[in-house]
């Protein structure tokens, strides 16, 4: 708790129905701590409550119940946002301003002095790959450029905590790589990052811990390496055999793929491996490879969501 940058207790959000419509529970009894320097990925299908949580963190929504502490302060105060950077999902920025004017406007809200504003704006534009585009009106920016400028505004106050809502959803593969690199660079700089995503491969590459949200409830949370990295979920065995040496049923496995003389089978229990190798050798088969396949975040996610 001492180092909890985000602390959420019993957070619930109920959206009241309008004109006779039913109320909808957006988030139910969320409890969560995010530690200093951690990269926490908040995962879940559409409508699971990820954006609701982020909007509650950033004071855009008011909770029905529960409390949030950010950097040790209740987030009901203006000061709690001083060291927070926030990037909304697919940000809309002021089209009538240039990139530099927009960043300057945001920097002024943080009360940065003229010298700091100038230096930081130049640095950030360079860092997000918008050098030379700062004098352009934002309305001429592409979706990817908007996302990059959005990231620059989130970093303008050199925040201790970054809250990013689907930061990679509007980006092309190069943009996503740049973003991942930026997050990893920020992680090295001991920043705490809380982000939501539905791109699991990206989340897996950068996060230390994940939380999986389903229908407004946190159904799973834990360290990524504990959840997906330590054990193999299946083993892929590839070998060749002489034509007609043995039919597939002799392998004792159902998950097999045949291509000419090559066979690839997948087993799900490590203890079945010696027996399989023994059968292959007994039929004069030639073993080509044995590859343990680790469980990935997608497997975990699908298992949890499908439960």
């Amino acid at each position: 708790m001492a180092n909890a940058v985000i602390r959420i207790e019993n957070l619930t959000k109920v959206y009241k129905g309008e004109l006779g419509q039913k109320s909808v529970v957006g988030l139910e009894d969320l409890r969560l701590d995010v530690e200093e320097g951690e990269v926490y990925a908040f995962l879940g299908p559409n409508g699971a409550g990820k954006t609701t949580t982020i909007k509650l963190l950033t004071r855009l929504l008011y909770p029905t119940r529960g409390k949030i502490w950010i950097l040790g302060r209740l987030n009901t105060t203006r000061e709690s946002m001083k060291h927070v950077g926030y990037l909304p999902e697919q940000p809309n920025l002021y089209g009538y301003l240039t990139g530099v004017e927009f960043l300057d406007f945001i920097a002024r809200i943080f009360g940065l002095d003229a010298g700091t504003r100038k230096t930081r704006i130049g640095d950030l534009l360079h860092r997000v790959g918008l050098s030379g585009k700062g004098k352009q009106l934002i309305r001429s920016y592409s979706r990817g450029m908007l996302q990059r400028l959005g990231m620059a505004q989130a970093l303008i106050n050199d925040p201790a905590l970054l809250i990013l809502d689907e930061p990679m959803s509007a980006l092309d593969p190069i943009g996503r790589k740049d973003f991942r690199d930026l997050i990893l660079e920020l992680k090295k700089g001991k920043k705490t990052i809380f982000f939501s995503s539905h791109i699991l491969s990206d989340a897996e590459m950068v996060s230390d811990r994940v939380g999986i949200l389903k229908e407004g409830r946190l159904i799973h949370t834990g360290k990524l390496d504990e959840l997906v990295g330590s054990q193999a979920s299946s083993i892929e065995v590839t070998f060749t055999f002489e034509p007609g040496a043995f039919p597939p049923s002799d392998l004792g496995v159902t998950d097999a793929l045949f291509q000419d003389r090559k066979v690839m089978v997948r087993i799900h229990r490590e203890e079945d491996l010696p027996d399989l190798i023994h059968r292959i050798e007994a039929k004069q088969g030639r073993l080509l490879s044995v590859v343990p396949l680790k469980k990935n975040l997608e497997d975990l996610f699908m298992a949890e969501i499908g439960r």
Partner: protein
Amino acid sequence: MRVWTVAWNTFRESIRNRVMLNILLFAIALILLSLVVGDWSMGHQVKVIKDFGLSAMSLFGLLIALFIGIRLMVQELEQRTIYIIASKPIQRWEIVLGKFFGLAVTIAINLFLMALTLWIVDWVVEKRIDLGLAPAIVLMYVEILLVVGFALFFSSFTSPTLSAVATIVVFVIGHMSGFLRDYVQIYPDKGFHWLLKAIYYVVPNLENLNLKSTVVEHLELPPHTFGFGLLYGLGYIFVVLFLTVSIFERRDLK
């Protein structure tokens, strides 16, 4: 400080808006046209020019107030640009006041340019500048600010179309307050008179801010009439902004 940052940005947004610029140019063209309209009047050229000019200022000032007042707030909410600002270390009241002051400066500059045009026209005809029009222009400015206040108020909780309709209704009723009061007095037994009475007390009497005929006709303008109008308008602006802030502070930004 943050209020002024938002105000400056609001002002910058307004002056970069082509529609507002077009309204201003049209208003200036119309005030210049009063030279021709005045020419048609029989011996009342000066009076017609001033009357026409002040009416044009009032109408186009109102159009700008409606157009940018509603648009600025609703656009923030609909385009979700508000997410970026409201999540920063800024209070919601600072955002509302910043928007209001930014609009106030924009409208002041617009009215000043229109007034300048009217005084130039006046100088062309009368070979003098009638500074006696100033009190009417000041109260016109207060009236437009009050309309902006109502536009912000309505757009803080309803759709742009409804906000525009509601603001126009307030403007129209505000100029019919005397009629409402007389109607209730003449027909006190009508079933809905309580409603008219309520409207009479809630909606500001905008005629208190209308000195156009007084200054055009060169009628006597007691200082307390101007002072009362000024305090009345500013008081109402304060109340409307207070209500807007109260609603906006509690509102979920979905």
